């Protein structure tokens, strides 16, 4: 019973949070709502007994991803309202809903009709994290390593892409120098910003 209550509670919260994320005009609201939504999502993982996944969810999303976004938003100066041109919002909603319903239909159809066999059955004798580790480092070792390399590549590329002119430190420069630097560049953030 507790699980049911928890499920409905978190489901409602998640939906609200994500709706805010999608609908709000304020970038800051969106960010905050999403961070909250992410944490609520992890609740489902815990309910489902996927403790490790839940932990990862919190760490990665709220820890890493959200802080990345936060830094990004600082960079873009998104404190002001996000003005967006809207065209035909009803169409958008209908389309999204339709897609969702169809996916459910397709996903449910085989589950309802046939019995699937487990490749890697859940072993109740050991804890979730341990079991995950067992599977991850045996059957999924290669994908895991590939994912690791991918993350590394992503990290490096993120630094390289975003980090140009990082050798200049704005805090150590005089205001004139900064103004000069901005003036020399045609597309400065300020031009677009203000």
């Amino acid at each position, binding site marked *: 019973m507790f*699980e*049911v209550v928890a*499920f409905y509670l978190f*489901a409602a919260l*998640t*939906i609200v949070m994500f709706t805010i*994320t*999608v609908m709000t005009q304020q970038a800051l609201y*969106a960010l905050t709502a*999403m961070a909250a*939504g992410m944490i609520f*999502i992890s609740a*489902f*993982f815990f309910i*489902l007994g*996927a403790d490790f*996944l839940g932990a*990862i*969810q919190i760490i*990665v*999303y709220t820890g890493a991803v959200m802080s*990345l976004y936060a830094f*990004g938003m600082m960079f*873009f100066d*998104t404190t002001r309202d996000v003005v*967006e*041109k809207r065209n035909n*919002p009803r169409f*958008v909603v209908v*389309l*999204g*809903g339709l*897609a*969702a319903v169809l*996916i*459910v239909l397709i*996903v*449910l159809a085989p*589950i309802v009709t046939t019995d*699937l066999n487990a490749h*890697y*059955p*859940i072993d109740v004798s050991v804890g979730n994290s341990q079991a*995950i580790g067992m599977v*991850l480092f045996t059957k999924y070792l290669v994908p895991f390593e590939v*994912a690791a390399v991918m*993350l590394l*590549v*992503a*990290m490096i*590329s*993120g*630094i390289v*892409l*975003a980090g*140009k002119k990082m050798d200049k430190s704005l805090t150590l420069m005089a205001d004139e120098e900064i103004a000069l630097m901005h003036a020399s560049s045609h*597309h400065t*953030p300020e031009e*677009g*910003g203000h």
Partner: protein
Amino acid sequence: MELTLNHYLVLSTLLFAIGLIGVMRRKNLLMLFFATEILLNAVNVGMAAISHYRGDYTGQMFAFFIIAIAASEVAVGLGLLIVWYKRTGKIDLDQMTSMRG
């Protein structure tokens, strides 16, 4: 009342729909990224639920990798976004039309 897989799948679908709506209506690139995160998370919920109800770790494994990919995506995506912003001073989708066919 017992929770079934279908509950989770419906939830997952709802979240996915929200994500899709976001993807379609957002013009700001950063906001678009948020929407994609929602999509990924919606799928993750489904994965974990199936994993649970079928007693199979494969679903969790997938969710795990999806998280990893989402993280990389954000890293690279934000990097590109910053470069773009430095160039043009805008992150509005309607202005990115250099791919016009």
